[in-house]
């Protein structure tokens, strides 16, 4: 058993047409013993950036707070909002600081980044997702990022179901089906799921009813 499999859990992010979705299961366990069906792994960073943190639960909580500190300091110091690409690099450098005694988390970042041609009157956004390994190697994907104990299953279902330019409602269906069916095949993930769909105007959060086993 590896330390990454102690608590269990999986996260997936997908790109759609002018939207992104990020979803995770809600299980927290101690190896085979399930403890909670309500364990949050996806956290808002700004209005338009969400980060998913699958892996060791203790490091999930610690990193959530370390990122909150760094993001708040950035926002106050620079008097501007973080963009997803910048936050991704911040995640990478935070993890690499602990290269030789790492955080056992493999974060997934999903967000909408402002285009250079965007103006306050007509803001324009581009969907952005990326994942990193536990020491901060960035992976900028154009379709989907998967992570956690069910990652291999998630890869398989996502490859099958994903297609480019899905509208927010279709993206929600696709990511939900991908997550639910993949975690059903993994003993350490499941016990409920939550999906966030980010569009330029709003974020829609839905909790899914899955197999509670």
């Amino acid at each position, binding site marked *: 058993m590896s330390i990454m499999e102690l608590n269990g859990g999986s996260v997936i992010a997908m790109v759609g047409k002018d939207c992104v979705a990020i979803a995770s299961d809600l299980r927290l366990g101690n190896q085979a013993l399930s403890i909670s069906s309500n364990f949050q792994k996806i956290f808002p960073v700004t209005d338009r950036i969400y980060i998913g943190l699958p892996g060791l639960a203790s490091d999930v909580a610690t990193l959530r707070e370390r990122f909150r500190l760094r993001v708040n300091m950035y926002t106050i*110091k620079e008097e501007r909002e973080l963009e997803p690409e910048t936050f991704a*690099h911040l995640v990478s*450098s935070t993890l690499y600081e602990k290269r030789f005694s790492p955080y056992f988390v493999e974060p997934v970042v999903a967000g909408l980044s402002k285009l250079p041609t965007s103006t306050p009157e007509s803001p324009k956004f581009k969907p952005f997702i990326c994942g990193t390994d536990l020491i901060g190697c960035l992976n900028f994907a154009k379709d989907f990022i998967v992570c956690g104990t069910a990652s291999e299953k998630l890869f398989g279902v996502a490859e099958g179901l994903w297609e480019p330019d899905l509208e927010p409602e279709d993206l929600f269906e696709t990511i939900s089906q991908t997550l639910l069916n993949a975690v059903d095949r993994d003993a350490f993930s499941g016990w409920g799921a939550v999906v966030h769909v980010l569009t330029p105007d709003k974020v829609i959060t839905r909790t899914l009813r899955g197999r509670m086993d």
Partner: protein
Amino acid sequence: MASDGGAYSYSLTVFSPSGKLVQIEHALAAVAQGTTSLGIKATNGIVIATEKKSSSLLIDSSMLDKVAVICPNIGIVYSGMGPDFRVLVAKARKSAQAYWKIYGEYPPTKVLTREIATVMQEATQSGGVRPFGVSLLVAGWDITRGPTLYQVDPSGSFWAWKASAIGKNMVNAKTFLEKRYNDDISLEDAIHTALLTLKEGFEGQMTEKTIEIGVVTVPTPAELEASQVGAATGRPTPTFRILSEEEVRDYLAL
């Protein structure tokens, strides 16, 4: 100038009764003896310029760097002590790279200016050091605020200018700039105005060899898109550059 502060003028960490840190006053005097530099912010860029005054004809002034690039989007020029400037440039460049290492992009002008100003302030509140004998003009472009021009003084205070001059001829130069500056000035006009302002107080011949000019330009949306693609490997489009001798000669000929 007022009395030199007496016993309070030697230790930097001691205030004089009138509330001054006399060492900083002396540092400003060192700056006022330096060659004139100026900066002008236009709607589509910034120009910073300085005299390259050499004390002897035998000096190879083409090897002298008075306008320095800190990172692709920020450049600085100074008035005062050259060696102090060199040290600050090295620290500023390192600070910009440290920022890159964390965020994958170069710092906005205000953030870098604040870092430099902090370094200069630390030299006014530490034991056994003296203040930096330079004033800096920091010019840069960033996506949030566009082109911005800051002045940093030996005390570590900094503030933004639309147009400013520092050094020997600063009073006359600033008066000249006040008359000629307007908020809609374009970069080309700003360069022209900068040259005229420098000429006002210039001792000796003003040629492409005796002045140095740095320019901040605004990238087009197309250039910005290109540098954003593949954020991991996208190279930032340089927005600050030092004009070559040929370019300066062309501007002088106008």
